[in-house]
């Protein structure tokens, strides 16, 4: 993990929310090239809202979002994808009525060439879904659907992947598998910004972490420091196993 001069994604003092309801009151986060960053925090802290604001799904009222030094504040999601970010929403993250193959094709919608190579690459990375490529995504199990969502988000070969609770409502075994896959994706050079309820698990393979509460930064630091911090442990990680 080389030390980069510029963070690849930087969120600075972002204020955002739904309509007049402000949920983020000035959040700052940065992601360096190739690193895994996890955001943890209690329910209602604004973690998912932050993801949506970064990706242009909700308007940013104040603050700046830069991607590779370029100001991308307020760009709509269809632009964000072109810059090199990708996003996996927490729920409804696959087109249930489309086949698995079609889901992946939609993931690569703006690709001009190399779609079939990328499809093969995705199927190699996620063999579970490869065998069912012509089935409707709605028929997949929760874990497989999550795999599909990851694969869809990777179709454009992004530099930064935003994951909103990838392990939500999955069985422990599936959680393990998903994290393994996320780590594998990261090793291929994709920086990952992740929101997780499963905080301990996520921090264990992250480099850095942020703690969000009530729409503001509460704590930040190296992942292992956060894991050892008494405050974090008490508040967000639950009792020591």
């Amino acid at each position, binding site marked *: 993990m080389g030390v980069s001069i510029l963070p690849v994604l930087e969120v600075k003092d972002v204020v955002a929310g739904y309509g007049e309801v402000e949920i983020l009151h000035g959040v700052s986060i940065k992601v360096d090239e190739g690193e895994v960053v996890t955001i943890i925090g209690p329910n209602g802290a604004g973690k998912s809202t932050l993801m949506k604001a970064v990706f242009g799904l909700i308007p940013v009222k104040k603050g700046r979002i830069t991607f590779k030094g370029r100001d991308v504040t307020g760009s709509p999601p269809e632009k964000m994808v072109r810059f090199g970010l990708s996003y996996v929403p927490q729920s409804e993250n696959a087109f249930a009525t489309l086949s698995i193959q079609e889901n992946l094709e939609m993931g690569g919608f703006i690709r001009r060439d190399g779609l079939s190579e990328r499809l093969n690459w995705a199927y190699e990375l996620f063999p579970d879904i490869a065998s069912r490529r012509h089935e409707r995504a709605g028929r997949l199990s*929760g874990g497989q659907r999550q795999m599909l969502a990851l694969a869809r988000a990777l179709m454009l070969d992004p530099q930064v992947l935003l994951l909103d609770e990838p392990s939500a409502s999955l069985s422990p075994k599936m959680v393990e598998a998903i994290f393994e896959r996320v780590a594998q994706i990261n090793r291929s050079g994709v920086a990952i910004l992740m929101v997780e309820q499963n905080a301990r698990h996520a921090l264990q393979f992250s480099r850095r972490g942020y703690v969000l509460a009530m729409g503001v930064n509460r704590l930040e630091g190296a992942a292992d420091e956060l894991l050892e911090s008494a405050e974090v442990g008490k508040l967000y990680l639950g009792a020591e196993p």
Partner: protein
Amino acid sequence: MRLERWITPAAFAAVTLAVIIMPAERSGWAFRDSVIPFLASFATTVAIFAVISLGLNVQWGYTGVFNFGIAAFFMVGAYTAAIFTKPPPAQPEFVSYVGGFGDKLDFLPFLSSDQWLPFLIGTAAAAVMCGVLAFLLSIPTLRLREDYLAIVTIGIAELLRNVSIEERGLVNSARGLTGIPRPFHDFFDPGDYRFVYFGIALGVLALVYLAVERGIRSPWGRVLRALREDELTTAASGKNVFAFKTQGFVFGAMIMGIGGSVFAYERGSVSPDTFTHFFATFIFWAMLIMGGSGNNKGAVLGAYIVWGLWIISLQLLGYDLPQFLRSRIFFIRDFILGALIIAVLLLRPQGLLPEERRVSIWLERQLKRRRRLWPWPRRREPTEAAPVD
């Protein structure tokens, strides 16, 4: 913003001036003999249509039930009232219809009951028939997407109109029913009767208005409005959504039936021609949307404005128009009504008189904002359940 405040009074004033000045000018300013009787008839029709518009407001404005077949209820109301007040057919070979209970319903031997009792019963029967029809239609549709009811009601309106034409013995086919008696008719000079009937229509409107206001401000009405805004939450708070929607739909339909009956007494004749999709459904939507759905005053004001426009177009025919306009004036009026509906939806979706928000303005705003983020309605029908890991 400041200009917008003047839209409602301006529209009201413009229509009022036009419906007074045009007939006055054409009759040589003969107010007593011509303008006043004309205005009485105009106001009577407005009152009757306002009743139906109120019925639609109960359905759409308060319950969120989407009725595109008002013609069906209007027609059932009018015909039911007619067969309850007319005597049985005198020459069945020429004129035939079912019922004809009029001569049996004046059973009270005092107070000249033939002058009012059959009409009361006829109106009640009209309301009941429409209520039953609405209830039957609610069964296949109200659990589904909102617009399925719209399609089904369009269908029933067309079907009933066809039935009334095809079934010879039912309501005298295409020629319709004529000679419908009128309440208290024998007590007054025929020339004055229109003023009496205006009073009756106004009385009915007032009663319906009060009933709707009472209903809407009651706990029952609050549930209706709540489920119009958010069905899911209302269901989650333990309300039987389907039952409440059915009740709102039935209540509105009964009001439409009452309006239809008052219409039949006023016209003295009804025929299937009246109850077309355009005349008997669209104009009520125009009235409600223009006036402001969810506001009873708006429903009444909308009836006034739209019927005013209608009458203005008729009045224009009395002037020396170029041939081009003369043969097209009604089509142009229809075009303007269609365009006006769209314009209101786009520029002033709340209508001329916006709904008075009582429950919680803050909450309303939040709900609206949330919805804006999700530009398409969420799917109601469940998607296939995913197997659990």
